[in-house]
């Protein structure tokens, strides 16, 4: 099922803004939290409320059963009928809560889908207006998306937890106002009569005994004054444990028995094949697939500008900013180690000369970029660098750019 959902959301491209939004949500949550804490002067402390319910001293031998991995039913403690607030049994409560959680998750995923479509639509509109698409730092893949969703849910959960604790502990910041004894008694009575919905849910989830009944639960031993209660295992915890065990087994079966989920190597093959197909389709659609045979030396300002930028970024460490050479050879003279025509430069840059320390750039630069940086390098011919390295290689006639138009462009530079 996860695979289906993932597939459904498989293309998250175009939602560049999502990480920013989530960051925003996240930090505003953080800020709100602090504002909340600071303004907590008169906050209401929701004491962990407890409802009377029948005591059940369940079996203690569950431990061995656990180690033997026996059936969950053996674990289950004697079911105790709960107090019937809102007239529901605890199983119904758990189902309801579980469904709510599922629903919420589904809603989040749904909202993501809507949001995605919206952004895609906007991008389309934008693309029609201007050809250049704004470059973005982040493009989300599906796994990244899931990572973000998980991360954010989890961070929010943690902050909620922290908030709850801070809310409780920050009460000491303010002097307690003692209500009149009578008023207190009335309030107490009201509280007992009408526990809040959350208190009831909390009580159901944990199957607490009421604090008044605590003495009945005290075990007859104490260690250095520490006593122990014999409370039931919190049902949500116990069932959560079962669920995690079942989930673990399913996970294992999914990979190793049924083979629905691909193992590492297979997943890698799939990823690579998909990417290759996508790339091929894209390049075909652009028709800018120049290579060392078809590349031409054409001087155009836009080409030179891009070439100059790339040169400053990737090449200057070894060849110096002005092409005068350093670790690598001088690129401004007429001596070439691996040929001085545009096709030769293209080949050298694309495949590299690993034996001599020139790396292959085909994984970093597109064919067009290699063409442009080659063009730029050829345009440096004849300039005088600051500290030219001695000539290396063979003397060659300088390469000539194509077309008179281009020559004029050079002249104007």
């Amino acid at each position, binding site marked *: 099922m996860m695979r289906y959902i993932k597939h459904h959301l498989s293309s998250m491209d175009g939602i560049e803004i999502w*990480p920013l939004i989530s960051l925003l949500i996240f930090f505003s949550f953080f800020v709100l939290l602090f504002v909340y804490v600071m303004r907590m002067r008169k906050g209401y*402390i929701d004491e*962990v409320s407890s409802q009377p319910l029948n005591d059940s001293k*369940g079996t*203690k031998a*569950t431990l061995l059963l*656990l*180690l033997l991995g026996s059936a969950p039913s053996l674990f289950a403690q004697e079911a105790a009928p709960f107090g019937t607030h809102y007239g529901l049994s605890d199983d119904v409560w758990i189902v309801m809560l579980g469904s709510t959680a599922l629903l919420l998750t589904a809603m989040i995923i749904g909202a993501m889908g809507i949001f995605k479509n919206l952004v895609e639509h906007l991008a389309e509109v934008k693309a029609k207006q201007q050809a250049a698409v704004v470059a973005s*730092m*982040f*493009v989300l*893949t599906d796994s*990244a998306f*899931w*990572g973000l969703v*998980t*991360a954010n849910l*989890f961070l929010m*959960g*943690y902050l909620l*937890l922290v908030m709850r*604790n*801070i809310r*409780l502990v920050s009460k*000491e910041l303010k002097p307690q106002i003692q209500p009149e004894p009578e008023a207190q008694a009335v309030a107490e009575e009201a509280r007992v009569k009408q526990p809040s919905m959350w208190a009831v849910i909390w009580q159901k989830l944990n199957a*607490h005994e009421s604090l008044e009944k*605590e003495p009945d639960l*005290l075990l007859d031993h104490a*260690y*250095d004054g*520490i*006593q*122990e*209660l014999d*409370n*039931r*295992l*919190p049902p949500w*915890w*116990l069932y*959560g444990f079962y669920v*995690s*065990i079942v989930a673990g087994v399913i996970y*294992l079966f999914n990979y*190793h028995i049924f083979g629905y989920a691909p193992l*590492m190597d297979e*997943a*890698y093959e799939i*990823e690579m094949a998909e*990417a*290759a197909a*996508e*790339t091929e389709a894209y*390049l075909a659609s652009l028709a800018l697939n120049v290579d060392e045979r078809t590349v031409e030396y054409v001087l155009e300002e836009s080409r030179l500008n891009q070439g100059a930028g790339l040169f400053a970024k990737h090449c200057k*460490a070894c060849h110096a900013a002005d092409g005068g050479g350093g*670790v690598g050879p001088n690129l401004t003279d007429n001596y070439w180690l691996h040929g001085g025509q545009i096709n030769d430069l293209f080949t050298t840059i694309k495949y590299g000369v690993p034996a001599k*320390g020139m*790396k292959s750039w085909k*994984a970093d*630069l597109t064919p067009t970029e290699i063409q442009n940086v080659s063009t730029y390098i050829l345009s440096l011919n004849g300039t005088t660098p600051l500290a030219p390295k001695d000539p290396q290689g063979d003397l060659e006639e300088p390469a000539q750019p194509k077309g008179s138009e281009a020559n004029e462009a050079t002249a104007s530079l």
Partner: protein
Amino acid sequence: MSQERFQYDNAIVKLFIRATVIWGITGMLVGLTAASQLVWPELNANLAWLTFGRIRPLHTNAVIFAFVGNGIFAGVYYSLQRLLKTRMWSDALSRINFWGWQLIILSAVLTLPMGYTSSKEYAELEWPIDIAIALVWVVWGVNMMATILNRRERHLYVAVWFYIATFVTVAVLHIFNSFELPVSFMKSYSWYAGVQDALVQWWYGHNAVAFFLTTPYLGLMYYFVPKAAGRPVYSYRLSIIHFWALIFIYIWAGPHHLLHTSLPDWAQSLGTVFSIMLIAPSWGGMLNGLLTLRGAWDKVREDPILKFMVVAISAYGMSTFEGPMLSLKSVNAISHFTDWTIAHVHIGGLGWNGMLTFGMLYWLVPKMHSTTLYSKKAANFHFWISTLGILFYALPLYWAGFTQYFMWQEFRPEGMLKYPNFLDTVLQLLPMYTMRVVGGTLYLTGAIVMAWNLAKTSRQGSFIANEDAEAPALETVRGRLPGESIHRWIERKPMPLLVMSLVVILIGGLVEILPTILVKSNIPTIASVKPYTPLELEGRDLYIREGCNNCHSQMVRPFRHETERYGEYSKAGEFVYDHPFLWGSKRTGPDLHREGGRMPDSWHYHHMYDPRSMSPGSIMPRYPWLLTDDLDASNLAAKIEAMQTLGVPYPEGYADGQAQADLEAQANAIAANLLDADIECAPQKEIIALIAYLQRLGTDINTPVAENTVAP
């Protein structure tokens, strides 16, 4: 029944408390220094012993074994005596435990910055110190078990179960992970190689978290939280279930540190599955802690001690939920090698261990000096500033983790990486790293305020070194009592309890480790993979000495963005001669497994002298001494022979002369190569050996004879 009179030994507790505070502040300070160096690399002042690769292990060892370790001992020595109604069995052993442990820490403080390291995370200390650790640990265990056997309380409280499990498991982990062959005094090679070494290491590393940072602290929680809150423990049966489930399941989860590596798929999946199952047992401890405070939340509001404990337990709950999430393969693909992991461990370290230690100390010190806390205000200040410090530390690092992953895996539609230069993805993180420094500073400030507050407290009170107590002697009971449950019975049988814990924790380790070591098909061999040459071996030892593995992984995972960036993904068979493995766990710098042949020798030479000359903006430290210091190859013969003992197929008699000759020949070739690039470097310099190693990395599978043959 006659009452027996005896005295509790508080002096030993006081010693451990002092050590906890001093080493805690030291460890945090070292951490802060390391964190600052990631923003300002020149902060190491170009001193070898201050470089990140050497002080990062010092930081982890100091906070884990010195701060938390002394915290464990302080809490155990205090609570154990009282829970058993007896004095520690031997004062002498207690003192040996204390001074021995401090000496071990001191030796770590000296040797780690000097570059003596085994490279295995949280087990970096070299073999003589490893032996000392084992001895001191056993001294503690013997003292504890003897105290338990001489107790005046029939049953063992849940805290004591945790102490026993801690003792027995850490002993097993430490001993098996430290199997290493000494080459000289302070140098050894791991007994295991490659994949097996990685599995054993992370079986250890993960369970160091489990049985050094978790189980003993759960024991402390079970003593100090009910004490501080004055409330009974919430559920006895929850204690039983979560104790046994926790120690049984925890041990299996180690492989989740090696997802998408060359570890066999089945072992990875086991790691994931048991991590998922671990949520509930871990949370059992959190529930029993938090629900013990039920009915005492009014006290929590007023008492800084309880506040520390509540945040500690919350942080515990959070990181034990996050851990299993990070163990899912798809999430791990994002988090692994990034700062997400660092954020995660600091929620555990600063939140759970730190805050619980602080709470415990604020409770213990006034109690032992029969006084009240000197300044409650300062304790509250400490609470708030450290809570804020944790948030400031963790949140930017979470963000750094996501950011870097997105940048790593982003492709351009033309099919190439959008950020082919790894450095671009690092520079993006510098603002986050700066915020992390701020968070760390806040946290450290809090700890210093605590030290001052505790010192003032102890000065205003009067210390009771030997506290009077009395209790009736224990009568011997044989066999099971009528109506006694099995667990109630084992609770008064310490030795069976110890043995049972041992059996329970051994199962997971054996099931995962034995097949990986014994079944050949788990590590398909590759014919073209050959042992390192002598010079490369020496270079590798320099790589280990400088702690390069703290920032550089050697494990290309089977993802498109990794194979595009680094090259062919790493295969299990490539590491068969790697004693120890050097896969790393964090990429502050790029992966180096396919580094061989990528850059010319001259590039490495310049880069090691000043990384910023080749990669402007790099945050890597400078290593100028590699260019000036001569390689110490005096142990070469011993190293080769040690490798032969470990099964590395060097020719018979290779260590006698031939190895040295080969080393010199290769060094001369590299020096000549450098000379071609106008670099004059004598062949006996350290940099030559390091270059030899770096140029060899990951190249074996590309050699022409490379026919990947799978062993039958």
